[in-house]
């Protein structure tokens, strides 16, 4: 969003005036709340916020201009915080409420939504965490991997699905020339931490908490559920986040299998991809992997979107 004008236009007589007015109001609405969840008392140029709000918002007999603007300011932040919390339960659990809140506020302030849908709100979170390591220190590497994993879940949930390549059609092309695409909803992740198991444990814990609120012996269940999920220790993990019959799944991969899929995703021929698997990719293993991947419907015709999928 471009910098707001110094003053909101007194008259709106053109689209340019309307845009100027909307820049002013939007800048005020998305401005971070203060420590007490109130509209900040000063505007970006140092003037009292009440004075700035009164320039374009009318007061009424119950609320000042400042208070009317504050309603929108709070609703913006509460709505977007809720959306991030819903999408990132693992990140919230790993960082804790306070650090997660600081990270979410900084992220939304520096990377406000650029999409018409809240579905895409966390698409840039992993990159933001890496660019601003202090916000998640000392767990930056773990936090970034969890954010990446949780975004992959969103992609797997409702990402594009393309026609599956039939096994019979593969046999017609030489492996030296055959190139396969990976379904757009499949994300390959090479991770330093087993975040798949961690996120599953967090979700299970959250589900128990939710259940506990409706059970008579909730104290026992609640105590168990309230126990914090143990943070994962570093352990090299290769995983594919995907869906089957429209349900989310996380499939652990052997390193060789990951390298083969990654090579295919980058556009390598089948022969080169299998070679990229290395010595551990024995013919028997490769055959078994491809049988599974075909059964899961992971392969489709190649498209441009596939190139950057593996990470």
């Amino acid at each position, binding site marked *: 969003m471009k910098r707001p004008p110094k003053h909101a236009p007194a008259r709106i007589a053109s689209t340019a005036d309307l845009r100027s007015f909307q820049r002013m109001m939007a800048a005020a609405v998305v401005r971070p709340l203060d420590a007490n969840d109130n509209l900040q008392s000063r505007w970006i140029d140092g003037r009292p916020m009440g004075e700035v709000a009164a320039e*374009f918002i009318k007061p009424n007999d119950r609320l000042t201009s400042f208070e009317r603007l504050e309603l929108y300011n709070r609703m913006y932040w509460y709505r977007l915080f809720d959306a991030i919390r819903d999408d990132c339960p693992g990140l919230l659990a790993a960082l804790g409420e306070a650090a997660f809140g600081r990270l979410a506020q900084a992220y939304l302030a520096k990377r406000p*939504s650029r999409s018409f849908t809240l579905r895409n709100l966390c698409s840039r979170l992993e990159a933001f965490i890496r660019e601003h390591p202090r916000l998640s220190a000392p767990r930056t590497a773990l936090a970034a991997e969890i954010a990446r994993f949780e975004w992959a879940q969103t992609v797997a949930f409702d990402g594009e699905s393309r026609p599956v390549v039939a096994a019979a059609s593969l046999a017609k092309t030489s492996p030296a020339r055959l190139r396969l695409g990976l379904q757009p909803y499949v994300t390959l992740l090479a991770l330093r931490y087993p975040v798949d198991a961690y996120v599953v444990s967090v979700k299970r814990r959250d589900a128990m908490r939710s259940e506990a609120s409706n059970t008579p012996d909730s104290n026992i269940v609640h105590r168990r559920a309230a126990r914090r999920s143990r943070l994962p220790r570093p352990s090299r993990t290769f995983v594919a986040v995907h869906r089957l019959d429209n349900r989310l799944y996380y499939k652990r991969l052997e390193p060789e299998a990951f390298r083969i899929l990654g090579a295919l995703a980058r556009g390598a021929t089948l022969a080169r991809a299998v070679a990229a698997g290395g010595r551990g990719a024995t013919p028997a293993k490769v055959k078994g992997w491809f049988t599974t991947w075909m059964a899961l419907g992971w392969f489709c015709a190649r498209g441009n979107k596939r190139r950057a999928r593996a990470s």
Partner: protein
Amino acid sequence: MPANRFNGHCDYGIGIGLRVPHYSHILSKKPVVDWFEIISENFMVEGGRPLELLDRILEQYRVVQHGVSMYFGSADKPDRTHLRRLRDLARRTKTPWLSDHLCWGSVDGTYTHDLLPMPYTFAAARRTAEKIRQVRDFVEVPICVENVSSYAEFHASEMTEWEFLSEVVELADCGILLDVNNIYVSSKNHSFDPYEYLNNIPHHRVGQMHVAGHTKFEKYILDTHDHPVLDPVWKLYAHATRMCGVSATLLEWDDKIPSFDEVHNEALKANEFIDGAKKAAV
């Protein structure tokens, strides 16, 4: 108006919003419902469970699309990706009309994800009407614009909200999704007479109505959609029905959502007022 060019000449009855907590009930029990309203953005995706579920609903029910982020009142041009996805979804659902709000919420491509009130000026009305026409021409489905509830008014405004609504829909030649609860909420927040609002809009353009619950606070009312409809809103609805005719009506219940039957029964209360309006018309 029961059926007009703004709602695709459809004489739909009373519907409710399609919401996640009710999915399994709807799919397993197949309750009789006139129609469902879907939030377009929830299904403007490329695959997966949302579209599978939508297709199952479409096999059994009539669906009307309601959007929350087209932002007809934003100075920005319509987002092309958004338009394409909306058109694709409209072709999938065969929605006879689609609706979105008379508001703004984005600027320079940054989205607030809120329904922000417009400054009621002639220039803003012209720009808004132009965008409504652009969207309708692209999606090729009649459009109804919904009045929003609001908590702020602007010095720059040159007319009342109902004059602005009338100006926009006349310039755009589009329909109105008349949200009776929103009129009530705004009337309390801005101290105007909601009946004056209802009496001074182009009634023949109303293609659909919304009713919903709200929450009263000490100094203002919030449009929370988490309660049954309150009596003053039903009274306004009865008046709106007398003024505009019996229109497709939808109950919005989006938070603290109770059972399907409770939501549906609340919506069906509209029948009492519809019957009254029909008798009065005889």
